[in-house]
């Protein structure tokens, strides 16, 4: 009798734990929302939500590409520098019209991504080092192309940065669209399956004849392109190209969003919904701390604690 109830209790606790593991991020977002609604003045306004969504959009877009890289048991440290490169390219090519500039910038991101991917897939360099090299060189290149901040006067870019459809800013629409696209690719396509398989077991994927190199290259190319898109959007929002500071530490924010969202760094699994929630969680946390005017020391420590808590909740249980 006691045994039976005991069994049920552990089963229940097990289920709860698994729920927490899978939906912990969403819970975290909900908690932060509630806390803000209760304690932050003027929080419940459309304008405020728009602000948070617009601010999180570039981080989210970068995080989507990062999630793919992490799914292959890799990582892309070059994303921040790619954003800088993109912003430089936008300024340089804006003379040919915003579309050309945008295309050139994304192409730049793709090229960096392809370089990353080739280093990783063909030479066999470890992702963290390969992308570290391009992280250093990429920002240098961005500064060589555009040595200092430059104002962007193009009306098209300005509209991209601040325009909206039915009250939803373009930035948010683009980020949401890319998130859906990524989720679709991961779930429904051959490419997505192959990505997960090779992230889980590279040798097995190789022997099963999967196009390991192609998938890796595509993943890093996608990550580069996404980072470039984020760079373009950030430029549009800022109405200026600032290769010095745009995207600094972005790699860490993006990785945090992905991991807090429940995608393990060990590869083989990608959670896009979680990544979105992870990015939103970090954004809300920062917003809360700023709105309550807490000193930077608090901000940093609070972020550290939240990251650990979120990852702790989502952790894979040991086998015992």
């Amino acid at each position, binding site marked *: 009798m006691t045994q039976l109830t005991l069994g049920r209790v552990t089963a229940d606790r097990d289920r709860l734990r698994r729920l927490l593991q899978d939906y912990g991020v969403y819970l975290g977002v909900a908690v932060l929302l509630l806390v803000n609604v209760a304690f*932050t003045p003027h929080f419940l306004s459309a304008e405020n939500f728009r602000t948070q969504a617009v601010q999180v959009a570039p981080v989210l877009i970068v995080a989507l590409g990062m999630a793919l890289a992490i799914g292959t048991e890799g990582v892309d440290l070059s994303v921040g520098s790619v954003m800088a490169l993109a912003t430089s390219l936008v300024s340089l090519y804006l003379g040919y019209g915003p579309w050309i500039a945008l295309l050139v910038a994304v192409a730049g991101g793709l090229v960096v991504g392809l370089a990353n991917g080739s280093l990783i897939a063909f030479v066999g360099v470890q992702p963290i080092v390969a992308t570290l090299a391009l992280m250093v060189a990429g920002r240098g290149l961005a500064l060589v192309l555009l*040595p200092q*901040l430059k104002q962007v006067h193009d009306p098209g870019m300005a509209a991209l940065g601040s325009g909206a459809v039915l009250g939803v800013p373009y930035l948010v629409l683009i980020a949401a669209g890319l998130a859906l696209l990524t989720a679709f690719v991961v779930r429904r396509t051959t490419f997505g399956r192959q990505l997960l398989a090779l992230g889980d077991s590279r040798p097995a994927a190789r022997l099963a004849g999967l196009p390991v190199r192609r998938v890796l290259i595509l993943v890093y190319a996608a990550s580069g392109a996404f980072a470039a898109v984020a760079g373009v959007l950030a430029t549009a929002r800022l109405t200026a190209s600032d290769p010095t500071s745009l995207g600094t530490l972005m790699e860490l924010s993006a990785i945090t969003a992905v991991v807090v969202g429940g995608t393990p760094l060990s590869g083989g699994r990608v959670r896009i919904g979680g990544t979105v929630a992870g990015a939103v969680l970090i954004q809300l946390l920062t917003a809360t701390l700023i709105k309550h005017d807490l000193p930077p020391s608090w901000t940093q420590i609070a972020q550290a604690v939240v990251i650990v808590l979120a990852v702790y909740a989502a952790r894979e249980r040991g086998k015992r």
Partner: protein
Amino acid sequence: EDDAAADKKPAAQGGSGGAAAASGTGAGGRTCTLDAFGGKKLDLKNATVGFSQSEKEANPFRIAETASLKAEAEKRGIKLLTANGQSQFSKQISDVQDLIAKGADLLVIAPLNSDGWQPVLSSARARHIPIVTVDRKINGTACKDYVSFIGSDFVEQGRRAADRMIEATGGKGELAILLGAAGNNVTTERTKGFEQRIEEKAPGLKVVFQQTGEFSREKGQSVTEQLIQSKPGIDGIYAENDEMGLGAVNALKGAGKQPGDVKIVTVDGTRSAVQGIVDGWIDGVIESNPRFGPLAFQTLDAFTKGQKVPQDIVIKDSAYTKDNAKADLAKAY
């Protein structure tokens, strides 16, 4: 000072136009001579001067600063060695030591941080290499560890910004400060001066918000966006450099505010910020002049000839307001 920006190439290259001018270093100021410092006379024309820059030349301030020194060296026909610390303090320390090892007879340093120069100072001292620090001070004994400091008084800049703010707001209301990067002397001093003066002169003004914008436009914009959501009634924003101020303008525009709704005062004097005054968004820009070239070489020249030079050469920074912005736009860097 720090990361500032303009969308056009700095008009004033090097020594031309707007060069920093010393002020208020009258008889009362302490001086230094070659004898007191120790070391030999030398002819500046045949000497090698090492210049250590702290950050990448990617913002108008640093660009103008480096260009001014290079131009002056060229004008005087002096061999100038340069190095860039890339915002990494340890690197700047090694940089200066490399300059010494490469044979610099004199050093001009734009320090990233005021403290932590002991190793460099001892190496230089052992070789009697005179050091002139520009834009930021090195904490040490003047005329022993280094010869002179040429630069602005950041606390004073903060005070003058406060004066502008009081004037703009009429001495009443709620203020926000966009701080520079944490741990930076410039941030600390510009905040100190501002807060002091507000407290003294305008008890009606309250600082209700202080968050770092890390001297960057993007951060300045993001932080201001949060600010105007949670404190819609804010009356004034003091940005510790032009970049963050311009970010704040972006945020205000995005929130549908009109020029003048929120008073903005910034420090630096870049062209974009001064343009901001012309456009009505910004109410005052306190200048921080980067063109140290002529003064620095003048000081070194005098010093190596054995003449007296002041230990502290505080630059007279001008300010831009609605009255002079349009006329002086060309003077901005």
